[in-house]
């Protein structure tokens, strides 16, 4: 059982890093293609394109190195991602955070913050809805005082603008 888990985590490590390397390689190629629009200049008068060209090529080589290392190394590491309920909780929270980032400017900071904190404390802390709503309200008020009143930051207020 333990050995299975161990080989599974090594497999995850290899696949994960190979995918990261492949994405890096793809990105490096796109970066180099986009970088062709920039003037390289000459060695005695280098243009804005010379550095991206150099680092783009190095990045492509390093990405290829990541793929080779992931697939060929005998000294593979281990990686494991949460399963079942733990994974569901993590994905939900990260999803909530991404949604918060997207809606921050649309519905405004107070409503978005209230929703995020309420959901976060309810899901992660497993506290009652009432306590979670109080946490959401309290945090939103605290942040409003700290950022808007004390630090004078202009935040998107949504319907309260």
């Amino acid at each position, binding site marked *: 059982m333990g050995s299975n888990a161990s080989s599974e985590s090594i497999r995850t*490590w290899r696949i*994960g*890093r190979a995918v*990261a*390397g492949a994405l*890096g390689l793809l990105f490096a190629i796109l970066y180099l293609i*986009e*970088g062709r629009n*920039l*003037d390289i200049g*000459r*060695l*005695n*008068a*280098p*243009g*804005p394109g*010379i*550095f*991206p060209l150099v*680092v*783009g090529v*190095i*990045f492509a080589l*390093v*990405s290829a*190195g*990541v793929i080779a*290392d992931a697939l060929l190394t005998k000294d593979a*590491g281990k*990686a494991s*991602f*949460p399963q079942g309920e*733990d994974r569901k*909780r*993590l994905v939900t*929270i*990260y999803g909530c*955070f*991404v949604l*918060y*980032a*997207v809606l*921050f*400017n649309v519905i405004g*900071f107070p409503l978005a*913050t209230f929703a*995020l*904190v309420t959901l*976060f*404390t309810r899901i*992660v*802390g497993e506290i009652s809805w009432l306590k979670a709503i109080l*946490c959401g309200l309290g*945090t939103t008020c605290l*942040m409003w005082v700290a*950022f808007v009143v004390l*630090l004078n*930051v202009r*935040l998107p207020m949504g319907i309260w603008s």
Partner: protein
Amino acid sequence: MDLLWNLLQGFEVALLPQNLLAALIGAALGTAVGVLPGLGPLGGAALILPFTYSMEPTAAIIMIAGIYYGGMYGGSTTSVLLNVPGETASVVTTLDGYPLAQKGRAAPTLFIMAIGSAIAAFISLVLLIFFSPWLARFGLKFGPAEFFAVMTCGLILLSRVSGGNLVSNLFPLMIGIIAGTVGQEAVSSVPRFTFGYFPLIAGLELTAIAIGLFGIAEILRTIEAKESLPKVMRIRVRDMLPSRDEWRRSWGPWGRGSLVGFVFGLLPGPSAALSSFTSYQLEKKVAKGRAEMGKGAIEGVAGPEAANNAAATSGMIPVLALGLPFSATLALILAALMIHGIQPGPLLPTKHPDIFWGVIASMFVGNIMLLVLNIPMIGVWVSMLRVPSWLLGAFVLVIATLGTYSVRGNMMDVYVLAAASGFGYFFHKLGFSLSPLILGLILGPEIEKHMRQGLYLSRGHLTYFIERPIAGAIWGVTITVLIIVLVMRFVKKDMSRKMASFEIED
């Protein structure tokens, strides 16, 4: 005499009320983020960075530096009490710290750590004071070739000596350098990789990336599993006084640890973590109580704790005198200086003596504050261990987003924050080091600037970058170190494996 006069001027700056307040807040926040689960000094410093933009540069640097060394101390508290290191440099402290706590000596151990950290910081600061003007004079001989060599070699060495395998450091480093090329280029103001999208012209915001990678990604990792609040023992101030034997056995490790830490702070790599590891190895060989090491010897705590604090202090030398950070937290200090339009480097002591000497003097003040905060208020910090991570997590998510948005009022930065947090989570899971990414992001544009200046000056002769004596020597030393590391790998496989277990997020 000049040195003393400069230092006095520095104290005049450091003792200004706003700077004292910055040091106090920095030290307190640093201790708190070190103690709290799921947020290290790096995440804490990244979270604070946006708030420092509206501050005076000296106060801003003092606050971030306070978080850095405050975090070193706070992280060790959990090592002793819970066997859970708050940050990487405190891993070694668990080896003897936790057994000491089990023997009922937790309170005196925390006391020895606090005093040792302060003594180490003072020793390191005195050495720093004597060293800085010399380094600054040396730095005046630096031109584009030397800066290019020192930054490039620093990053190469960092990738090689930091532990883990080479690609684990190089891959994120290159991503950081590439991210640094997005936006308007500094020499001819040409927009690069913006795809005509206006908010990208100003480039990718460092704060958003640093907070995402180190703050929010850490929160995502802590919510992976359901937490159970740790049982924390009560620590009373009156129990903290060490016995005469513990005092006697701590002086040597404090002195040795301070010197080890000072030297490591000047070198590329995760200096705090490596210095505490080296100090522990040294104590195992020379300490009086070496037979007890690993079972609860006070030397095993006093030495490494002194070492990591001394390294945190001396790490400021390359940042202030050369503009060269060797860790991600120091890179944030560099970024804070640059955001205020101050170019760290050899000219800093003469152009901005108030900042240079003010920051050095403030570190004396900050360490005294740390001592005052940590000894009488130890109960407060220990009680913070009872803060549930779900409450902390919700706070961090919101503060991170609002802080990031407040820097430029640009929604693009909030999207980058969300993307960087997911990216940081996966990269950490897959064993990639994240600190090189931040270093690449900050140093990449500097390397490009010096490379292009060098090519202009030399009229395109590439040999210019290695034929100047200092640049040539830096490349020579780098190649030698790389060869030594390679040979050591074959000779001492066991040692490399131990070093590889250290992550480099310090």
